[in-house]
């Protein structure tokens, strides 16, 4: 049986293009059946697999400027902290894709992984998901809903990976062509700020962007080898991300 080459999917996010519009946050929630907030939800207890943060250059008005940083699971590739601490083996790094797989069905809700994640990219279902009456009809059939008591996080839109692979299989292909599989946030960004691809493919746009001098990773010194690269030509943004 043909085996596909292992991929290492990653992203390069251009912070100079991001306007903080939140289309990526919304597209992510729609794709992954993330429920609307309860009235009691706060930035700490809400579920936002993709979250855009706002930082400031700290200058006096009118020289104050902002930058917007979309944070999602960084898909750590080396000694993945959440995978290392999970007592249930509900987190696994998929060798075929490099994606850190989170299995909400195995999760027992201890939230140890949330503590371990240096990027605060994991979210807990404090409440049962509730949609306004009738809105369940708009749920995405390619993603399972979760119930309260389990942790969930970005998995690079695995439902889309399934769908892309299925479509390729229908044509007899086991390899995906570049661009055939993109997560929802990548497709939705009006500024085209997010580039998605396979870091193992040296010809891919992502691999080239990851190699150049404007790209950096957040908290690189921790050595978790995240697969999300951020790009900026503004020195103050780069310094803020390293702080």
């Amino acid at each position: 049986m043909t085996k596909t080459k292992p991929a290492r999917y990653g992203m390069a996010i251009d912070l100079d293009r991001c306007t903080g519009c939140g289309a990526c946050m919304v597209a992510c929630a729609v794709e992954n059946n993330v429920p609307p907030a309860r009235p009691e939800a706060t930035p700490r207890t809400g579920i936002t697999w993709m979250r855009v943060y706002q930082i400031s250059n700290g200058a006096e008005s009118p020289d104050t400027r902002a930058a917007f940083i979309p944070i999602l699971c960084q898909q750590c590739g080396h000694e993945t902290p959440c995978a290392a601490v999970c007592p249930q083996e509900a987190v696994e790094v998929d060798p075929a894709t490099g994606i850190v797989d989170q299995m909400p069905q195995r999760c027992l809700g201890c939230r140890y992984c949330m503590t371990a994640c240096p990027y605060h990219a994991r979210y807990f279902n404090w409440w049962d998901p509730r949609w306004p009456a009738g809105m369940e009809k708009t749920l995405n059939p390619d993603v399972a809903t979760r119930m309260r008591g389990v942790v969930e996080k970005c998995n690079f839109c695995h439902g889309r990976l399934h769908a892309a692979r299925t479509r390729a299989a229908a044509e007899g292909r086991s390899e995906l062509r570049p661009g055939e599989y993109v997560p929802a946030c990548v497709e939705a960004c009006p500024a085209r700020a997010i580039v998605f691809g396979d870091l193992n493919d040296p010809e891919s746009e992502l691999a080239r962007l990851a190699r150049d001098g404007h790209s950096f990773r957040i908290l690189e010194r921790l050595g978790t080898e995240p697969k999300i690269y951020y790009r900026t030509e503004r020195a103050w943004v780069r310094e803020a991300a390293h702080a």
Partner: protein
Amino acid sequence: MFEEHRGKILFLAGMLAALTAGWRVFPVARYQTVAQPVDFSHKIHADKAGAKCEDCHTIRDDGTFAGVPTLDKCSSCHAQPMGTSAREKQFIDRYVTPNREIPWQVYVRQPQNVYFSHAFHVKLAHLDCHQCHGAQGESDTLPPARIERISSYSGSPHFQDMDACENCHRQRGAANSCLACHK
């Protein structure tokens, strides 16, 4: 003699009763059997109509599996009776004439969090329908579906849980990570 070992005999009797109930009664009683709404014969359609599996159970262009065909597939031939059997007449009266979709029971209904792709198994792994579905294609009647009483999950004899899937995947070196099959 019985009085001497009364306690032990009763204990063993209890064990025996439990073992019998657990291995013989429980595996049958835990499932609810639900008959299919239409007494369909694969054999007749294969023999007389020359139909092959993929004529009705198609994989669409986007790779998704059409599953059990919708009524229009049946109506395309059975708008009028094709034979003389009573079960065909009943089928036409109940479903074709009022244009009502047949509420088929699914034998191996996947839970919401499982993603099974016929496209991978048929088009990439080149598995034959019989390898998983057995002699279903040659049967004259449809077996009843088994539904587990407590969890309402499908209780197919071969595919109880993911062990059967995992074993085959391990043997063939296919994808084995969690999200390869789970949503």
